[in-house]
């Protein structure tokens, strides 16, 4: 890892590390709580993909917006939704960011520009294009980022949304998190090209492949694309090669993956890589790392306690927000 073409202060670098750590510890907690049957429904955790959400979103302001997927806890936390509101939502409590009416797959907080986790594959892509359209319409210097998986690049909404944004030259960045599996199926079994970024040429836009486990590379490449979007140069498709360390959802152990593949990717864990970089460059020492770790653990524990203590929604929520 190196900091080439990236000018981030030590404070900013540490803040990025802390966000990645928050996502990791949050997701580990969710995974454990789910195993204890304390969380209803289903959940899709994102351990191993933290460098993508944090690397991209570190370039965004509060006015910029994102759409993400059902594997969206990481993006939601990185964009600034309070951990306790995310946790309470996952528990189906009235204090959740969506009053418990959305759940793990629909984490949304418009007040921080998190337009939603879209649980239908690819559905957030045209919605991000629409947000980009609104920025262009109002001559605002903001950008919209759509996060989606490799599997989404095979669905119609991807094609329609990317073409639409390209034709109208909208300030949108399409970020594909290629974690090598669409649910249980390996990429090469379902996808006609080795690199999702190759598809960009079909839409007349730039496509860039980046090491999705290297947060500084993700930051650098997405900064260029976001700057281009703000400058009216239209969209970019960024493919972040990364790995889903857990299974697809709930209790899926992901046994369809070869052990050697899992081992190789675990060695390239994005938090380990970034931590090594920060330590070897004297940016983070053991005591500051421990302090950070205990701070993040406390935030997650408090979020858990908040979710536990919160009430379920009352009956008057059952039919509210339909069209009244």
């Amino acid at each position, binding site marked *: 890892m190196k900091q080439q073409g990236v000018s981030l202060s030590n404070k900013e670098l540490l803040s990025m590390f802390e966000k990645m750590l928050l996502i990791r510890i949050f997701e580990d907690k969710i995974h454990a709580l789910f195993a204890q049957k304390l969380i209803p429904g289903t959940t899709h955790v994102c351990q191993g993909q933290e460098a993508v959400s944090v690397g991209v979103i570190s370039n965004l302001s509060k006015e910029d*917006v994102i*759409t993400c997927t059902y594997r969206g806890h990481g993006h939601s936390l990185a964009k600034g939704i309070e951990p306790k509101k995310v946790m309470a939502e996952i528990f189906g409590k009235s204090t*959740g*960011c*969506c*009053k*418990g*009416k*959305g759940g793990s797959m*629909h984490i*949304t*907080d*418009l*007040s921080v520009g998190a*337009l*939603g986790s*879209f649980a*239908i594959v690819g*559905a957030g*892509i*045209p*919605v*991000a*294009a*629409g*947000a*980009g*359209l*609104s*920025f*262009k*319409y109002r001559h605002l210097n903001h950008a*919209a980022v759509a996060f989606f998986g490799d599997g989404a690049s095979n669905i*119609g*909404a991807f094609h*329609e*949304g990317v*073409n*639409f944004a390209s*034709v*109208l030259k909208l300030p949108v960045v399409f970020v594909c998190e290629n974690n090598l599996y669409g649910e249980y199926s390996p990429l090469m079994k379902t996808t006609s090209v080795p690199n999702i970024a190759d598809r960009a040429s079909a839409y007349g836009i730039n496509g860039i492949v980046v090491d999705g486990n290297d947060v500084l590379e993700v930051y650098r490449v997405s900064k260029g694309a976001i700057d281009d979007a703000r400058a009216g140069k239209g969209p970019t498709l960024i493919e972040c090669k990364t790995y889903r360390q857990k299974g697809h959802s709930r209790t899926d152990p992901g046994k369809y993956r070869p052990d050697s593949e899992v081992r190789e990717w675990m060695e390239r864990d994005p938090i380990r890589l970034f931590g090594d970089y920060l330590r070897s460059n004297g940016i983070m020492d053991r005591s500051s790392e421990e302090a950070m770790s205990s701070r993040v653990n406390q935030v997650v524990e408090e979020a858990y306690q908040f979710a536990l203590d919160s009430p379920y929604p009352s009956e008057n929520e059952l039919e*509210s*927000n*339909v*069209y009244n």
Partner: protein
Amino acid sequence: MSSKVMSTININYRSAIRFALREEMKRDDRVFLLGEDIADAGGVFKVTEGLLSEFGPSRVIDTPISETAIVGAALGSALMGLTPIAEIMFSDFTAVAMDQIANQVAKYSYMSGGQAHVGVVIRAVSGGGISFSAQHSQSLEAWFAHTPGLISIMPSNPRDAKGLLKSAIRCGRPVMFFEHKALYPMEGLVPESEELIPIGKSEIRKEGEDLTLVGASSTVATCLEAASRLESNGIHSEVIDLRTLSPLDSKTILGSVEKTGRLIVVEEDVGFCGWGAEIAAQAADKSLYYLKSPVKRVSAPYAPIPFSPALEKMYMPSAEKVYAAAKLLVQGS
């Protein structure tokens, strides 16, 4: 209605819709249009003709043939505070965008705990009768009425088309606005001054005490024609124009049924699981003891719309069919 003192103009259904779009775009610069061939070409049915030159390409946007992108982009822009009006050239094409309409637009407010209400208006051209075959002629309103979160509007005449569309644009909620293609040339008097017709309120077009005919969009005229023939046979029917399918004005419909004791629902869509079934069920549930005869539906058979004009004529509801059903109900023969 105070039509006596109101100054009116005679325009067709198509122009009435265009007038509503123009007035709302002038009133509020957040309102914009997007759709296929709506700008340079002025729309396949010429509804948006002239609006490009008046409002420019940033507010009248030609899109690729991408219904999913059109509706998805409408949703995204609405979340950011704009008021998009998306045109779906034929309502049959909503099937292409069904995820965005039914899963995203309709559910956003609910699933987000009311963070946004999603002011998206989707104008969709519906209906048969002009031999456009099975993929350009359907009346699919029941699909949307069955999806909580969507308002569905079905105007039957120029005045309603204008006044309801203006209300739809201002309501800040997701609206499916169904324009019947065979009604575009229909002329009628429309107030010159601004009129907002309330959503969720049906209108009694003709009063009567022997039976209630309920229609929407194109079938309001069908009901009125049948009613006039019944009148000359001494049968006085009440004709209700639904105007809005969802939310349904059950109060007006059931109030009429309780007065007349007889109900025929006249709908252009397939009768099985159609919206007429919902009205019949409500009558059975809430007004059963007022009924003097079974509830009848005049609706399309359980088949796609045929192309051949001969078959399509048999398929569609008609004044003859309504007349025959009504005579049977009232006179028993």
